[in-house]
């Protein structure tokens, strides 16, 4: 078992466990913290795919910025814990989980039965070059310049929108 494999399974295990924690913990703060961990785990998984840039951005943007925002909001509005979460609507929850399992099963079936399609392109190994900062930066500044600018604009609009929405009552 190569180091890559070890790292992948390790990070994957972190992601799986934390994702379950996210949806099952009573306290939203705990959910948020688990989600941070989950993102960190994902960043590790990205590294095993040689996507250095994405991995780093994942940690900085997601685990860093977005999740802090979440925590702030949680602190700000202090939602009461879903007290009866585990008692209430048990059957509905079981049904949902059942549906989830079915979907998971279907996805796995499709993945397995579709593997030949993925590997038929000849590239069965991860590429080392594509994930570098240089490569991504180059692409962003050349072929993807317009989307890049657009996304900047979107962020600006979103930040203004967020401010307007979160402001005190606007009469």
């Amino acid at each position, binding site marked *: 078992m190569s180091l890559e494999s070890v790292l992948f399974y390790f990070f994957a295990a972190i992601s799986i466990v934390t994702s379950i924690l996210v949806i099952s913990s009573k306290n939203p703060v705990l959910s948020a913290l688990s989600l941070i961990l989950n993102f960190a785990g994902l960043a590790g998984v990205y590294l095993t795919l040689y996507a250095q840039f994405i991995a780093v951005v994942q940690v900085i943007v997601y685990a860093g910025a977005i999740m802090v925002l979440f925590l702030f909001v949680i602190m700000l509005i202090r939602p009461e814990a879903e007290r009866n979460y585990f008692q209430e609507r048990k059957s509905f929850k079981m049904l*949902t989980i059942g*549906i989830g399992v*079915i*979907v998971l099963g*279907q*996805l796995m*079936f*499709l993945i397995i*039965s579709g593997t030949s399609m993925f590997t038929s392109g000849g590239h069965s190994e991860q590429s080392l070059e594509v994930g570098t900062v240089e490569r991504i930066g180059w692409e962003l500044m050349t072929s993807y310049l317009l989307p890049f600018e657009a996304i900047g604009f979107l962020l600006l609009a979103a930040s203004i929108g967020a401010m307007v929405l979160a402001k005190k009552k606007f009469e």
Partner: protein
Amino acid sequence: MIDLIYLTVLLPLIGFAINGLLGPKIKNEKVIGVIGSGAVGISFLISLGIFFELLGKPAAERHFIVNLFQWIKVDYLNIPIGYQVDPLSILMALVVTGVGFVIHVYSIGYMHGDKGFWRFFAYLNLFIFAMMNLILADNFVLLFLGWEGVGLCSYLLIGFWYDRKFENSTTADAAKKAFVVNRIGDFGFLIGMFIIYLTFNSLRFEEVFAQVKLGGIPESTFNMIALFLFIGATGKSAQIPLYVWLPDAMAGPTPVSALIHAATMVTAGVYMVARTSVIYASAPTIMMVVAVVGLLTAIFAASIGLVQNDIKKVLAYSTVSQLGYMFLAMGVGAFTAGIFHVMTHAFFKALLFLAAGSVIHGMHEEQNIQKYGGLKKYMPVTYLTFLTGAIAISGIPPFSGFFSKDEILWYSYANAGFAFWLVGAITAMLTAFYMFRLYSLTFEGEGRFDHHHVHPHESPKVMTVPLIVLAILSVIGGFIGIPEIFSGSGGNQIKNWLDPVFKPANSLLAKHGAHSHFEEILLMAVSVAAAAGAIYFARFVYLKRKDIAESASLKFPGLYRLLFNKYLIDEAYDKAIISPIVKVSDGFLWKFTDVKIIDGLVNKTASLIESFASQIRKMQTGVAQFYAVIMVLGIVIAFFWIMASL
């Protein structure tokens, strides 16, 4: 001169435009009156000029058509605004503009001080315009324009005092009734016109009549045409069953009654039948119908006239009755006699109405003859002229009514049989009776009015001079039509004059066996004697033995009431036709069919869809997570589908 014929039509229109548009600004009654009368007066002079010009031409050449411009042209249909000058139309034009002018002058006095003075003269001029179109038209459509136009003017003038009450309703009701009943007749006229167009592909008199003369068209077609045209005539000329509007038309000012509802407009139907005499001559069955309807109307209206108390009502029923005479004449093929009677009737009936107006004027708008009496000493001119008119209408020689009426009676005997003559003669007797009842109650005997409040007085000159003019015409008007037994062959002037117009029709009519002069003179003598007897009897009853009249009415209360209430025809029409139509329209057609069924169906469809939708929308719970479940279920199904297709 003949080319100027359009001026006789145009001048009254100009008068109408000036008075109608500027009338309220002019304000001066004299100016308005002069404009109104002047327009008609000049028209009369032009007509007179054309008449003499025609007189100077040989009889066969007295026919001219003056085309102004093309009116309606579609495909083969080509209708010009064109006027026809021939003996018949120019005679009618003379009567209309002549009597019209006199009545215009009279109106200056009669309408003095009325706030609608300008309006009155505008309407009168518009009427003359329409009437001239009717008379002079050289095609059916232009005639129809005049035909409807006079109906409109009649409507406007009956409702002239639109804020007044009239009997149980209002003048406006009477006006509307007149227009609508006229319209029913017009409907018949329209249909007749359509059949003519269908048959002859033309609506111009010349072309149509030329084709009629050629023959080859089945009699049934002619019957249909003649019948529908006659329906139009019954509407305009107040014959059974459409006469009901004319008595109510007395709601208008008296000069209007004289001009429109006695002298001119109501004779339009007679004129139309005379104008289309060729068609009628080709439809003998309908000729008989015309004669019978005319006769029935004559006696029917005369009997109602016996007991009426409103001075104008009596004259109105008398008019209906006389119009019946004219149709009798048309029906028995005495076209000349009919037109002759139109003319003499125009004189004496206009005279009677104007004199009645003068009485009403002098009696402070009182119209009930039971409240008159002994007026001859207060208004001598009116009295004399009225008497002249009454004698004329009663058919006493040598007044004009005698000649025309007797001609009609003679022809009905000669062409249709003794029964027609008998009913006609009885009608003449009734006429003489009610006219002298009217005369006696109004001018003779004791005054039955309130001497303290009512001060009868003679009317001003502007009103009496027209009376005198008409009285003279009523006396001498008959001399143009002296029967040939007195004047010798070819001595009947009006017959000679109108002969070119009626020649085609007369040649189509079957000739009856010759009758001796003795017969004619005998019948004449009988009818004159009957009329004279009736006059005497009327004077006797209403001046000396008033109790006879009262006891008669008490003896036959049913008959009296039936006559007094005009056979309840108005009520019957109302019950049988008008109110059912209104009720069905309101209750069934509108509130049930339209609102409940048709619109109900539309709205029901909409509400069905709405109620269905309101059930479906319950699925929209508003809980976002529920939507998510549905979405995931959708994904599951989609995946299964993909898996199945792999």
